[in-house]
């Protein structure tokens, strides 16, 4: 793979084929001004929303002045998963976060728009009290014995705790003001918490509620008003949360502390972290959200919600199949083409029958060659099952599968129709066409969409992608007929890399998709969103432009590494 050359400056908007398809044109953006009445509760006088009345909430996606494309400094509230991971790694006790608050406007759950309101704050306080109590019982005597003894803690003991624990909690050295404030807090607690155990418990609770713990700061501590790179501590956090969804580990902290977090060190940490259990879990999370297979986790936990599953255990097996395949392709030295084309599948006793294979001996996933007609991630039963009916085995949902390819793999957005009563159209077809219920899902949808030029023009941009997998049912099983009717996965015309062409089925399409410029560019866009927490910003646009030459034959993880070496990822402009 080529390395990033910051002399490269591609077109900001990336490839032309990534332009929004334009199915929907009814957006009206002119009426977003705020009136003078009806607002209360939050003082917004110094935000764009309050100051200009232009509807900009002052978040991270605003325009930047021409010629100065470094984004503004950013505050990113830890996501639900990042919070759980960080508390666990910081305290070293088992912790399960029961509160959900992540922002997923990017399609990934680490978006930068999350906020903390009163209910969330209170719930975090209650959780913090509970986990701090466990920490004091289980870990404090080992980590900080001087705080676990009966005698009152000495100032040295408290200083040592604040320096050491505070450094890890805040992901940077506590300032003198932090130290004095925490000592003052401890002093004020002496009456209510006369023993060390309670005192330590509330001190830990207090630090878990610190904004320095709860937020990732990207560039907010820059001096002056010119663009500059964030410091090594913020850089370490950005690397760690991208690659592991948690705080920096000891080695990364050490590099930040010694000022040695240069490009070589960054590259080494990225590669190292990707191999850790947290790193592997993070990449699985990335893949799962990219391919929108998060329902597999639901199938694992609540199989009864999916009547199509042949057994309750099948839900867990499908989820494991996805993870195992992704681990074998995306992780390590897998390329985008490997992910899309690999025929190294994995089955267990639950999933083998879905491929027409005999159940393997033993427990767990067993490697097996993919049956004919399947390859890569799109041929997995788990992926096909994620984008299909949860109840009816025969219902494959071409719209959902078409949108997976169109939205997630080609990064083209489809709007819902404007001014058309699609519900009425569907209803009329059902009433007018004899034997409608006996038709294949494709035949039904083609009838419903055939309501006029506007319907057809939009639907033909994405539904054919879904038709390609018509011969895989809602469990990903190969099928030739729907009742008495033959299934037809062929598509006469489909657009890829700007060209129209026909395909016999998914197996014929996937090899071309795998090597398309469009897929490679979309992967670049998705990684940029994942790193930046923004769906559309100056940073994502710049990354897309500068990595425009990425190809499907390059190692997928190296794109993470190269992007995390790109100076734009760390550059912020305080004057924005």
């Amino acid at each position, binding site marked *: 793979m080529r390395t990033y050359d910051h002399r490269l400056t591609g077109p900001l908007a990336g490839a032309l084929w990534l332009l929004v398809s334009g199915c929907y044109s009814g957006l009206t953006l002119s009426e977003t001004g705020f009136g003078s009445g009806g*607002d209360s509760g*939050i003082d917004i006088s110094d935000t764009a929303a309050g100051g200009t009345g232009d509807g900009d909430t002052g978040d991270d996606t605003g325009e930047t002045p021409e010629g100065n494309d470094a984004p503004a400094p950013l505050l990113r509230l830890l996501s639900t998963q990042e919070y759980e991971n960080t508390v666990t790694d910081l305290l070293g006790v088992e912790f399960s976060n029961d509160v959900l608050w992540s922002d997923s406007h990017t399609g990934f759950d680490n978006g930068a728009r999350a906020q903390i309101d009163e209910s969330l704050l209170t719930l975090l306080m209650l959780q913090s009290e509970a986990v701090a109590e466990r920490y004091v019982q289980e870990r404090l005597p080992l980590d900080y014995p001087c705080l676990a003894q009966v005698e009152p803690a000495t100032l040295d003991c408290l200083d040592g705790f604040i320096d050491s624990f505070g450094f890890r909690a805040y992901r940077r050295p506590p300032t003198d003001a932090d130290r004095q404030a925490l000592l003052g807090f401890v002093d004020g607690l002496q009456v209510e918490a006369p023993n060390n155990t309670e005192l330590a418990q509330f001190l830990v609770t207090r630090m878990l509620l610190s904004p320095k713990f709860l937020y990732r700061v990207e560039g907010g501590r820059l*001096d002056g008003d010119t663009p500059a790179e964030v410091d090594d501590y913020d850089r370490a956090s950005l690397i760690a949360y991208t690659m592991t969804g948690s705080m920096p580990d000891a080695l990364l902290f050490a590099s930040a502390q010694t000022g040695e977090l240069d490009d070589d060190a960054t590259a080494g940490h990225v590669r190292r972290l990707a191999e850790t259990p947290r790193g592997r879990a993070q990449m699985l999370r990335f893949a799962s959200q990219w391919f929108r297979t998060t329902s597999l986790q639901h199938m694992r936990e609540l199989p009864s919600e999916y009547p199509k599953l042949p057994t309750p255990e099948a839900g867990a097996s499908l989820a494991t199949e996805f993870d195992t395949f992704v681990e074998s392709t995306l992780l390590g030295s897998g390329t985008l083409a490997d992910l899309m084309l690999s025929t190294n599948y994995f089955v267990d006793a639950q999933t083998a029958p879905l491929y027409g294979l005999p159940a393997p001996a033993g427990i767990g996933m067993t490697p097996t060659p993919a049956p004919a007609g399947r390859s890569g991630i799109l041929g997995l039963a788990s992926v096909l099952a994620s984008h299909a009916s949860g109840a009816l085995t025969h219902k494959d949902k071409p719209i959902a599968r078409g949108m997976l390819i169109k939205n997630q793999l080609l990064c083209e957005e489809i709007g819902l129709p404007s001014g058309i009563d699609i519900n009425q159209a569907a209803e009329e077809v059902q009433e007018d066409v004899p034997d409608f219920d006996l038709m294949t899902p494709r035949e039904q949808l083609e009838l419903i969409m055939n309501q006029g030029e506007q319907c057809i023009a939009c639907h033909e941009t994405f539904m054919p992608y879904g038709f390609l997998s018509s011969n895989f049912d809602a469990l990903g099983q190969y099928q030739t007929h729907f009742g008495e009717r033959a299934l037809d996965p062929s598509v006469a015309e489909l657009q890829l890399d700007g060209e129209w062409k026909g395909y016999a089925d998914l197996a014929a399409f996937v090899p071309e998709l795998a090597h398309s410029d469009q897929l490679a560019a979309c992967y670049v866009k998705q990684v940029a969103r994942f790193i930046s927490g923004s769906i559309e910003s100056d940073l994502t646009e710049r990354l897309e432009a500068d990595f425009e030459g990425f190809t499907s034959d390059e190692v997928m993880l190296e794109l993470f590494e190269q992007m995390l070496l790109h100076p734009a990822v760390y550059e912020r402009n305080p004057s924005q």
Partner: protein
Amino acid sequence: MKRRTFVFRSLKAAALLTPVLSIRRAEAREFPTMRGLVWVNSTGYPYAEDFFPGGDTNDFTLSPILSDFESVRDEIVVVDGVSIRGSGPAPRGNNHVRAPGKVLTAKDIVQVPGAEDGTPGGASIDQWLAGELGLQTIELQVNNGGSNNHMRHRPFASGPGAFKPPVDNPQNAWNLLFSGFDPTSTPEAIEATKRRLRMRKSVLDDVTDELSRFRSELTGVETLKLDIHEDAIRKAEESVARDLELEPVSCTVPGQSDGSSAVPDRAQAQFDLAYAALTCGRADLVGMIWGYSGQHWRYEWAGVTNVADSGHDEVHHLPGARREDYIRMARWDWNHLRDFIERLRDTPDGGGTMLDSTLIMGLSFFGVHHQLDRIPVMFAGGSASGLQTGRAVRLAEPRFNDTVLTSFAHLMGAPSLTGFGDDTACGPVPGL
């Protein structure tokens, strides 16, 4: 569900209110202190006559969806002729985001660039009232798990761009409302509770100071997040301070939810918590969103047996062909509100009932299909506010929901509000 007696109640902490809020309280003195429930759903109806009553204003016939409301007919007012203004962005061309974003704010939403999402254009009426009258609120959601971070789930907002996300897990809602209180109420238990609350207050005080320092350390970061965070700490501190003013009170709170994510269980649990929050004085105003915009419930619990994956896709999208199923689903939804009305009516409170001093507003943010026109609107209870119930009001001229929200504010004790949302002069619903 196990039950236990909850024996504390917080005083209305007038002394803790800011001077500004105290003055506002004084201005509203002529009104009784009202409690409230704001209930919003995406239910809609297949045909208008399936929801709106027939007959005359005072002698109306209940519609199929409201057919089980006979027992509370005298406690409700149904309003026909209200729409949500069809202005502002509709991300990706649909009302699934715009409708919940506008139903309680009456302000155009702000679209998130590049995403099928939006942020609120202003405060929702419940949060506006909370700020204006110093009310304690809680926001709940009935949903069967999954993420809820989209505007489709979030009709409540404390200001522009500032969501007030509802709590969908009843266990978390219970913790927010009742955590830390010892039902045995021995003096030792009371003191232990107070000590914990004092320590909690110390934590929050200190975090307030730190947030201020944190803000001063940073340059160029967005301020809205910090503003919202600061507001959250302030409200949490006020809540703890109120809790420190304990006095014994007899009320019953539900036990902790058993963790079931089944919709009927969660619906019951959340309404139980809403009831307990109001009767125990733990909240003055409860907001509740029923499901979310486009929820995929199957409604087998309501006797709808032929939905494979999604009641929304398979019934709401086919209101003509599936009219009976649609009505059955909608009736199940609205009957929960009826049960709540009955429950409050059957709860003595002073010389009357809880329903007398509790104003309920139920809104659907869709009319037929996904349209914003002629949305279902129901008021209930609140006789102490002067609301004349037992009526079906048909508006001579269509009005927007800003008038409904203004009426709600007037009845709750903010009579000087001239309008709400994008039209600050809209006035209340005529004839309500």
